[in-house]
């Protein structure tokens, strides 16, 4: 039988506010355990939550960016369950009246665009962390994360393959960083995914029973976990069994999912409106302000890059995935006097390779956009060749010097003077008559020998196009 995969996603994006959603404690990552948990975060009796307005603004910004309905009136609810890292015994979340309603996001897979529905997005507080290792049979509780603002973004079950799911997650990942509402750091848990997966025979309208896979903190894990889960569900059904609705945990080390709890064991969360918080009202003034604060969104930017810079779809996609990279690119193009294609190659090629190697974000690039632009300008006007430019970039990496200064100092200027090159070619041909004969006898591969020798002599500075042209005409004589 042919099977179709159906995927829906829940993404928890940690909002990049300075303080927590209901208290003044810091949200900075990596502090000593329990040093960033105040009385409110600890759930001490008598303490009360006060909503962080910045979190609300971020949620509104997100909603506007996906063309969603922003609820003029949304309500916080208490989601009741006991767990040691949940200090109040309930999570303050939103339930039947979320702040962001139906919206959508376009993804591109295999050259085709598909629209994925976003059911809703709501604000909630994060729980703390339970640490099961190093406590000799006990559990350590770190409440630094408790109360960190999250935006839970729930998609429609619109995705039909792991590739689509990953494309959707990447799109959202890019978007929240563009909006400056989430740092997108998946290792630190700032952007987490739960994936709902089911399978059904191709052509069947009704959805199959789904399993929810939690704890997916990289794009690669999402892809692998979905692939594995689909295979598992098909196996279960084809061997006569039934998929049960359950929560499964992905184990990256073993590359498998395993059952956490089934629907029967699921909690009744007894949601009800939180009486400590007033309903959130979004005024039209705030909406206008947030609308005005929206940056150019990735999809628009990508299109503009294709039109304005004549880039192909792939290049414009890569360059606009990170807002910082897009900004860098545009700056560098300016400084290169408009060498859009060449700058794209250098940003995506040598620069990105260098940054990756050194594990540096583009915002902290040792070579500024201005300096890279200056370097590309010299390639474009043939002062140096691409090969020499790589050397120059390396020298720029460890200094604050501009390309021009380095080219001058190191004497790297390309030899394009035909007279000079001709003299060298004549001399080389005179010294290697045997090879000249071979070439003329039809062994055109000998060309490489002459180019190599001359490049060696000029330490790579010979203008390769000129050199080729001259060599060819001389050898044919």
């Amino acid at each position, binding site marked *: 039988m042919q099977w179709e995969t159906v995927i829906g996603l829940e993404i928890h994006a940690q909002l990049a506010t300075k303080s927590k959603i209901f208290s003044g404690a810091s949200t900075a990552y990596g502090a000593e355990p329990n040093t960033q948990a105040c009385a409110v975060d*600890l759930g*001490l*009796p008598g303490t009360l939550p*006060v909503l962080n307005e910045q979190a609300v603004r971020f949620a509104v910004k997100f909603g506007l960016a996906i063309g969603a309905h922003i609820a003029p009136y949304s309500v916080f609810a208490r989601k*009741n369950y*006991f767990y040691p890292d949940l200090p109040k*015994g309930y999570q303050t979340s939103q339930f039947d009246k979320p702040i962001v309603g139906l919206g959508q996001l376009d993804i591109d897979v295999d050259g085709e665009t598909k629209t994925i529905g976003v059911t809703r997005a709501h604000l909630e507080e994060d729980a703390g962390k339970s640490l099961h290792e190093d406590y000799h049979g006990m559990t350590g509780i770190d409440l630094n994360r408790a109360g960190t603002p999250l935006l839970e973004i729930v998609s429609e079950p619109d995705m039909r393959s792991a590739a689509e799911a990953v494309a959707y997650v990447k799109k959202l990942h890019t978007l929240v960083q563009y909006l400056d509402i989430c740092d997108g750091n998946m290792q630190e848990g700032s952007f987490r995914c739960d994936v709902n997966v089911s399978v059904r025979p191709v052509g069947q309208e009704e959805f199959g029973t789904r399993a929810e896979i939690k704890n997916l903190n990289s794009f690669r894990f999402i892809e692998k976990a979905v692939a594995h889960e689909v295979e598992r569900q098909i196996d279960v059904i084809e061997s006569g069994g039934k998929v049960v609705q359950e929560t499964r945990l992905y184990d990256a080390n073993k590359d498998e999912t395993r059952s956490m709890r089934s629907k029967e064991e699921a909690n*009744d969360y007894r*949601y009800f409106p939180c009486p400590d918080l007033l309903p959130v009202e979004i005024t039209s003034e705030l909406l206008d302000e947030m609308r005005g604060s929206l940056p150019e969104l990735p999809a628009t930017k990508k299109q503009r890059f294709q039109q304005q810079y004549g880039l192909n779809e792939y290049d414009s996609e890569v360059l606009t995935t990170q807002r910082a990279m897009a900004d860098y690119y545009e700056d560098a193009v300016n400084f290169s006097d408009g060498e859009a294609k060449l700058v794209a190659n250098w940003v995506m090629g040598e620069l990105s390779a260098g940054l990756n190697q050194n594990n540096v974000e583009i915002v902290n690039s040792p070579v500024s956009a201005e300096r890279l632009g200056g370097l590309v300008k010299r390639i474009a006007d043939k002062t140096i060749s691409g090969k020499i430019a790589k050397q120059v970039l390396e020298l720029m990496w460890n200094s604050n010097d501009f390309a021009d200064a380095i080219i001058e100092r190191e004497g790297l200027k390309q030899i394009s003077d035909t007279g000079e090159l001709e003299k060298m070619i004549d001399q080389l041909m005179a010294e290697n008559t045997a090879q000249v004969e071979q070439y003329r006898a039809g062994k055109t591969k000998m060309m490489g020998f002459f180019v190599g020798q001359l490049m060696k002599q000029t330490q790579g500075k010979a203008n390769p196009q000129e050199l080729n042209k001259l060599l060819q005409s001389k050898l044919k004589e």
Partner: protein
Amino acid sequence: MYNKSLKELSASLRNKDVSSAELSQYFLDRIKHFDGELNSVITSNEEAALLAAQQADKLIASGDSGLLTGIPLLHKDIFCTQGLRTSCGSKMLDNFIAPYTATAVSKLEQAGAVMLGKTNMDEFAMGSSNETSFYGGVKNPWNLDTVPGGSSGGSAAAVAARLAPIASGTDTGGSIRQPAAFCGVTGIKPTYGRVSRYGMIAFASSLDQGGAMAKSAEDAAVMLQAMSGFDEKDSTSVDRPVDDLLANLGDSIKGLTVGLPKEFFTDDLDDDIREKIEEAVDTIKLAGANIKEISLPNINLSVPAYYVVAPAECSANLSRFDGVRFGHRCESPKDLEDLYKRSRGEGFGDEVKRRVMIGAYVLSAGYYDAYYKKAQQVRRLIQQDFVEAFKEVDVIASATAPSVAFTSGEKKGDPVSMYLSDIFTIGVNLAGLPGMSVPCGFVDNKPVGMQLIGNYFEEARLLNVAHQYQQLTDWHLAVPAGYEQEV
């Protein structure tokens, strides 16, 4: 000294007839002498109080003092007090010392009041007789066989026995007004949102409201004035200026319309209490007010609606008491579930457990619509009834409680009859209105309280009516036998 008003005490302090240290010691001595049998104060703050009193004396000497500077008071043990145990009347918090002070307490502290200690209360404010306290019941100074009411029974009994001039209370369904009535003191619960709930341990957050308990409306006004005001730490506190509660106390109530809801004068009300209320209404009429019968058609639904909403909120509010971070933790738990079950099982008393279970039930899947949602709808109807009523009248009057103080143990095994003792007070909390109780006579030598209900944020008018009534009567000045003596 013990029966002096706050204004008189404040004048004595300013005139150096007495120092705050002496005044504080005087009431501390009365507590030591009388409270052995009453059990109204569960934590003494003697040492810190005397230091605070000395500070107050310095302020008074420098001329920089207000009406409350140097005045001793007691706080219901539901208000968190930094460095001094806050038990909420529960074994669960027998060891709990908050690292912060409730806003209402801070405000009184800033006004110069001196905290002598913390008063006994029903566990987590759940009860109408003070019998659910982990620290044992409180006795009513008017009759030691009877209860003081609850949940602010400790505060009411302490003010009645003149162990402190004033005391704080909280009122979720009548917890200031009913014990005030049972103990013959004046108590006011302001409009929801008027006094900050920050640092006040929550029972039912949408109903809880702190307030003042005192000998008279005037003293209650002084205390409430200091407690009130917007607090950015409590999102439900209301950002609006506090009226001057003292300025209009002396105004005539001539021409004011007082409404009597017919639903509050039915067979539920004891005849001799009805008589006392009618007498009190006559006095108010004598002062020039018009009396008008009104109807609150849905008010009979207030007890059932309340016993859905309040337990629902309490079931979540009390989840934080899990033995993990603070409060009672069972001995050597064998696993997480054991930790939860035994810590909560041992830490909470029966009434608390009952309400947590009711609350969890009414919120659970399949029952939410039938109970919680329906109760919220009823709540809006009740609120609407009051809104309509206040289009016709300025103040509503009724009995505070259907009976006088009942005998200890009488209703302990019968929760429904206990719940019905708040039948006249609960609607006020569901609507979020201000309400108070004023002493208006005795039945069998037990105090009777008249309830006055005002429109939103009309505390000043309520206190004005109560004060005018107290100008014409002296029920509020009566002191229970035995407690008139100096010690």
